């Protein structure tokens, strides 16, 4: 590797050629502050927080985009640098809604942290006119409050990176604001609800639509039987809300906390994931054997499903008709579980904890009411962040909780279900079951390494029962767009495709804990979180969905067999083509 020799604050340093000053400084233990910069996503050098002095340069330079060169001398902490950064912050504050005490991002706000770290003492230095600001809560999943927007464009870049690009800068100068085409509310444009904009936002301008109060109300309603289910990836991320290292598996404490919040049953969406695999593997085999539409594409990710409805409606027949694990679990709670317990499904409130903001949209879709009209499969969706807040609100000391187990009625699951939270996980789980079914035996080789890992686009060919099965796994909608364009043109020859909406899969979902750019730019969050899931899979006694005794019981007692008429009524759904304009 080519290196160049530079000096930072007088300290000699050898760094890879092509590094930016920001990266070089980081390797020397110097953390240059940033606001607009997000690695690989938003590298526009616009906010001027990361300015440094370079010997011989005419003015301060933006270190996030400025490459190092041989003999360069950089100064990161001179009075000139610090004054400039402070002034930048003071000017941002001059048009900022400074309601920090009541802001949801207080404590995790990057603007707030920088003001503290740089010692900004006067938030009124440049006080004057305030621009009119947009407040948009038109969708099910998020709230945009532009009075807290600093115009860093991180959300715009995140949206474009999803090939959605429905938000952008409108107007100019003092009136510049982030909005949608023709100033339409977000609900009127082709937003897929993925929430990647929220986790990119450094301030409180973008937040999930908080439903903690709805959950508290249900928990305190004596006429309601309130049940909770948690998605595979929550156990790998919830700990971050309580300051634990990225990638800590907190399944036991999470269950304990939910029980202490007052949920009557704490269920695992992993049960629904195993069920999804049963139905999806069966659907795949049927399509292969009966000349059905191929490639079949997974349907667990509601952001992806909505994207398909907007951008590739002609490929909707390729999408599996299976409901997502959340909706399968909800549907089984309100039918099978209700029947067994003698409960009226109308009295059951199903709360789900999801890594995902699109799940808040998904529960309102048509054909998501297995127990009868007006009885939604899932009633309320909380993101990981909201659950973190709810636990704090109820003053539960998370770190000191014992490890507890899910309630057995829908708490048993397999390693196959756990890895659903990462890109490649659904494919691997489906292959484990499809291979056993088609081969008619228990196949020993169950680790499908080729579909693992953080790459956005993976493909592999597996020989199953004499047939070459060609699979593709993509995450992030830009990758999905690329793949589907090929499928649409009849290329690829794929049989089975897994698509997850968020880059890296659910572990990097729009509902996950927000890590500041100072962490996100230098840590592989997705890999660390996914590792927690793969480790759990490896340590589980059962690692194939069809070996889950609870799944066998559900089919024996209630559903019949995979793909049965009853299974279709309860576990499958339909899609609609949507217009983008």
């Amino acid at each position, binding site marked *: 590797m080519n290196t160049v020799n530079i000096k930072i604050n007088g300290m000699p340093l050898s760094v890879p050629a092509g590094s930016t000053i920001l990266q070089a400084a980081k390797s020397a233990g110097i953390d240059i502050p940033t606001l607009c910069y997000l690695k690989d996503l938003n590298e526009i050098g616009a906010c001027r927080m990361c300015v440094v002095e370079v010997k011989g340069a005419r003015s301060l330079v933006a270190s996030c985009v400025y490459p190092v060169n041989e003999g360069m001398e950089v100064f990161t902490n001179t009075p000139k640098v610090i004054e400039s950064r402070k002034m930048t912050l003071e000017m941002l504050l001059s048009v900022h809604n400074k309601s920090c005490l009541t802001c949801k991002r207080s404590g995790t706000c990057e603007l707030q942290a920088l003001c503290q770290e740089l010692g900004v003492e006067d938030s009124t230095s440049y006080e004057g006119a305030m621009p009119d600001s947009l407040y948009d809560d038109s969708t099910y999943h998020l709230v945009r409050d532009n009075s807290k927007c600093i115009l860093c464009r991180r959300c715009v870049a995140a949206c474009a990176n999803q090939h959605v690009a429905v938000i*952008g800068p409108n*107007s*100019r100068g003092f009136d510049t604001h982030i909005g949608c*085409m*023709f100033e339409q509310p977000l609900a009127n444009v082709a937003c897929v609800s993925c929430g990647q904009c929220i986790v990119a936002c450094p301030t409180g301008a973008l937040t999930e639509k908080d439903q903690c109060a709805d959950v508290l109300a249900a928990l305190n309603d004596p006429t309601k039987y309130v049940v909770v289910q948690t998605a595979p990836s929550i156990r790998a991320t919830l700990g971050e809300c309580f300051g634990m290292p990225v990638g800590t598996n907190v399944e036991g404490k999470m269950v304990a906390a939910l029980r202490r919040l007052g949920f009557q049953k704490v269920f695992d969406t992993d049960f629904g994931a195993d069920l999804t695999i049963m139905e999806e593997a069966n659907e795949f085999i049927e399509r292969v054997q009966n000349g059905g539409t191929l490639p079949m594409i997974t349907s667990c990710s509601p952001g992806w499903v909505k994207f398909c409805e907007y951008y590739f409606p002609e490929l909707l027949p390729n999408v599996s008709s299976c409901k997502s694990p959340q909706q399968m679990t909800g549907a089984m709670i309100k039918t099978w579980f209700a029947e067994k317990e003698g409960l009226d499904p109308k009295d059951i409130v199903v709360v789900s904890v999801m890594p995902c903001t699109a799940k808040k949209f998904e529960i309102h879709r048509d054909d998501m009411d297995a127990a009868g009209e007006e009885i939604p499969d899932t009633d309320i969706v909380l993101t990981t962040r909201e659950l973190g807040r709810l636990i704090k609100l109820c003053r539960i000391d998370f770190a000191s909780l014992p490890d507890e187990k899910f309630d057995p009625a829908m708490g048993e699951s397999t390693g196959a279900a756990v890895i659903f939270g990462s890109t490649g996980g659904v494919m691997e789980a489906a292959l484990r079951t499809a291979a056993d079914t088609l081969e008619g035996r228990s196949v020993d080789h169950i680790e499908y390494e080729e579909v693992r890992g953080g790459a956005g686009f993976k493909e592999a060919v597996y020989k199953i029962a004499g047939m070459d099965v060609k699979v593709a796994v993509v995450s992030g909608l830009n990758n999905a767009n690329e793949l589907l364009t090929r499928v649409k043109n009849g290329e690829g020859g794929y049989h089975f495709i897994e698509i997850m909406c968020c880059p890296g899969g659910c572990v990097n979902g729009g509902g996950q804990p927000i890590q500041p750019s100072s962490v996100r730019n230098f840590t592989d969050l997705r890999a660390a979180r996914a590792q927690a899931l793969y480790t759990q899979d490896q340590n589980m006694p059962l690692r194939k969905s069809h070996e889950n005794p609870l799944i066998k019981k559900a089919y024996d007692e209630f559903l019949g067999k995979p793909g049965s008429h009853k299974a279709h009524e309860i576990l499958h759904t339909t899609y609609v083509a949507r217009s983008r*304009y």
Partner: protein
Amino acid sequence: MQKRISNLPFSGTPEQEQKLNAIIARHKGEKGAIMPCLQEAQEVYGYLPVEVQTMIAKGLEVPLEEVFGVSTFYSQFSLTPKGKYNISVCLGTACYVKGAAGVLDAISKSLGIQPEECTQDGMFSLTACRCVGACGLAPVMTVNDEVYGRLVPEDVEGILEKYKNGNA
């Protein structure tokens, strides 16, 4: 000031659409194709309503929000149609101190439209402009190519009447 967006029904003709499609075809694949497309589309339609911008976005295969962002960034682009008579009131320094704001208010009140809007019947549109170079006549307004100077708000009604009656 943020741009006003027209809520008048779109009345594009097939001929205009044909012209627009030719414009898009000419610029497709170019770097920065949005700007020339918007410029030429405005020459065809007089303004850039959502219908026109959607055609451009679809044709160039770019996000509609990006097209809209460009159209609201540059002051030359209008999102509201021009009327048969476009009234431009100068709010440059000289006109302003001589009371142009009162003239603008009087027109706005009489026609029932705000600056950057067009009347429902398509007769009048109103814009506030910067210096037209006739400061000696301040406050000044123009109706299409006709210049009116040394105005007071009371003059407005008579001038508008002339155009309404077709005696201009």
